């Protein structure tokens, strides 16, 4: 006969073997709130690094393009008029190869009288007779110097005008006289790769002189515009090193350091947007007063780790009391600051900046010491336990701190040395263990060419 105890055990097994309260549907709905997990806000480190690198590359390209544009403009602006209408041996392969004409311009619907009727004699000398000698790659070997007739059509004029507006490589088709037989050659070899515009632009006919005058105007305009543009879009780079203190309530301030690179994009005369990337170390330590969210995070991760395993030794159990002894956290992070700098004075010798900082983590290390009193063991004698967690390349916290800073510029030749005291109050937590770390410190920045740009 079964004892009451055995009977009870069987009854418990039987009752709870399939304890269906009929709320499985609701239970599933509850589970779906947590599963599958939504895309984590913590982006993978490679993604983040990619973003930082892209930003820097874009800034770099922008920077270098500004200089390239200036060079082109300089060349265009200083091109002497003679080069536009070269004398006899002007190379055909040059970018700005002018229209080379024979003594008679044979354009469709073109009447020299109409076009030159208003010109004085001196102008006629420059333009007409338009007899130039040209060399062409295709003719170099046999007849290095040839006399060519340029067919100046409406479309040609339009195309040539387009050169002044930036398309510099459109082909000019010339007729070369060779043994009284005309053949078309592409005057500009480079231009052959560029598809010429097919549509005919309906524009009033222009004489060569008018065309040149217009071209000069357009060129002058484009120089002004480009110069304005290049002066408006100034980008500089900073490298910086910072020394700062991390702190939190009840946390002894820790001295840390960081290095990084910033790009500064001038938006208006007094406003600069600065963004970049840096590496810094953040440390916190607590004695006895470990914040609840931190110890909770330590316990949560511990339980997650162990939950899947079969009985694991060393677990604290419910009938135990734990006391926090200490907590140490070390985070090596990639900081992505984005700030707006305002230069209040005309001299622009100092600025006030504000913005946000986001962080990702190269490494995280947490050490948690706590005492554990198990009332079923040694009459509750406290045992010290240490829990250490480490991770690498994990996590991304967007806008986890604000940035408030003042920069004081000190010119060194073309460059600028900037002393930047700053304060970064925590807006959000950092890392896996919900650390709210604020910091204050001093950045020492070296700004390349900043003295010229700002």
């Amino acid at each position, binding site marked *: 006969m079964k004892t009451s105890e055995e009977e009870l055990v069987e009854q418990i*097994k039987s009752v*709870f073997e399939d304890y269906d309260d009929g709320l499985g549907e609701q239970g599933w709905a509850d589970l779906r709130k947590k599963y599958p997990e939504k895309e984590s806000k913590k982006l993978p480190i490679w993604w983040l690094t990619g973003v930082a690198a892209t930003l820097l590359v874009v800034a770099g390209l922008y920077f270098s393009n500004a200089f390239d544009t200036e060079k082109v403009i300089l060349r265009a602006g200083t091109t002497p008029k003679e080069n536009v209408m070269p004398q006899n041996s002007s190379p055909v392969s040059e970018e700005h190869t002018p229209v080379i004409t024979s003594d008679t311009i044979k354009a469709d619907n073109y009447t020299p009288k109409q076009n030159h009727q208003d010109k004085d004699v001196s102008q006629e000398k420059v333009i007409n007779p338009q007899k130039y000698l040209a060399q062409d790659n295709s003719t170099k070997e046999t007849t290095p110097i040839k006399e060519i007739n340029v067919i100046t059509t409406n479309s040609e004029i339009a195309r040539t005008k387009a050169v002044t507006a930036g398309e510099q490589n459109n082909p000019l088709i010339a007729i070369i006289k060779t043994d009284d037989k005309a053949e078309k050659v592409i005057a500009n070899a480079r231009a052959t790769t560029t598809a010429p515009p097919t549509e005919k632009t309906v524009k009033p006919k222009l004489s060569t002189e008018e065309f040149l005058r217009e071209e000069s105007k357009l060129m002058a305009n484009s120089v002004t515009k480009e110069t304005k543009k290049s002066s408006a879009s100034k980008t500089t780079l900073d490298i910086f090193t910072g020394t700062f203190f991390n702190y939190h309530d009840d946390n002894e301030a820790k001295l840390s350091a960081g290095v990084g690179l910033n790009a500064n994009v001038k938006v208006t005369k007094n406003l600069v947007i600065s963004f970049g990337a840096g590496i810094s170390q953040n440390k916190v330590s607590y004695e006895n007063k470990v914040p609840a969210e931190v110890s909770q995070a330590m316990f949560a991760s511990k339980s997650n780790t162990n939950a899947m395993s079969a009985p694991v030794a060393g677990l604290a159990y419910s*009938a135990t009391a734990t006391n926090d002894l200490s907590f140490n956290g070390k985070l090596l992070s990639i900081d992505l600051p984005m700030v707006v700098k305002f230069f209040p004075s005309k001299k622009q010798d100092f600025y006030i900046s504000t913005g946000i900082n986001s962080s990702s983590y190269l490494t995280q290390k947490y050490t948690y010491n706590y005492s554990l009193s198990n009332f079923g063991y040694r009459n509750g004698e406290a045992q010290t336990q240490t829990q250490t967690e480490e991770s690498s390349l994990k996590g991304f916290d967007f806008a986890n701190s604000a940035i408030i800073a003042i920069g004081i510029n000190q010119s060194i030749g073309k460059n600028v040395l900037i002393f930047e005291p700053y304060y970064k109050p925590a807006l959000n937590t950092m890392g896996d263990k919900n650390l709210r770390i604020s910091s204050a410190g001093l950045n020492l920045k070296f700004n390349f060419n900043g003295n010229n740009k700002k």
Partner: protein
Amino acid sequence: MPDNESLVELIASCKKGDLRQQELLYKQFYGYALGICIRYLGNRDDALEAANDSFIKVFKSINSFNEENDFKPWFRKVLVNTSLDYKRRSMRFSEAIELTDTIPQSTHTSAIDKLSAQDILALMKNLNEMQRTVFNLYEIDGYSHKEIGSMLNIPESSSRTYLTRAKQALQQLLTTHSIYKR
């Protein structure tokens, strides 16, 4: 409960991440999971949370499960460990630690084989946390004292002691409240 063959198919579908199949698995094992968790946690809300956490762990790690093995014992381990973790966590922060033997409260007087889940839970509430857990682990879920010692971070001998005390308390409750009297 699905038969073994359909369970294998169901698990294979779950391995592919099919949410519908996971829902099916959930509903088929919902009662089983809740029954285990409620024994350890004592109330439905906590039990449901622990059960759901267990299901999530299972869905996430089901690829590591070999279909040749029996699913239920594996799932049971997950449920028990999750319940203990849940209990540990809540105890850590609520600090509501029961250590002393409680005075048995009245339960419904009925025959043991007529005891409902609520009756049993009420009965078990008369045991302290440690006694109840050891009783569940040893008597119902079949863990050895050595395993219990490891799981609860207590010596094996303490596990035996807790079990003995739990049994004594239950016997006393059954006798005092004439549960066994038909």
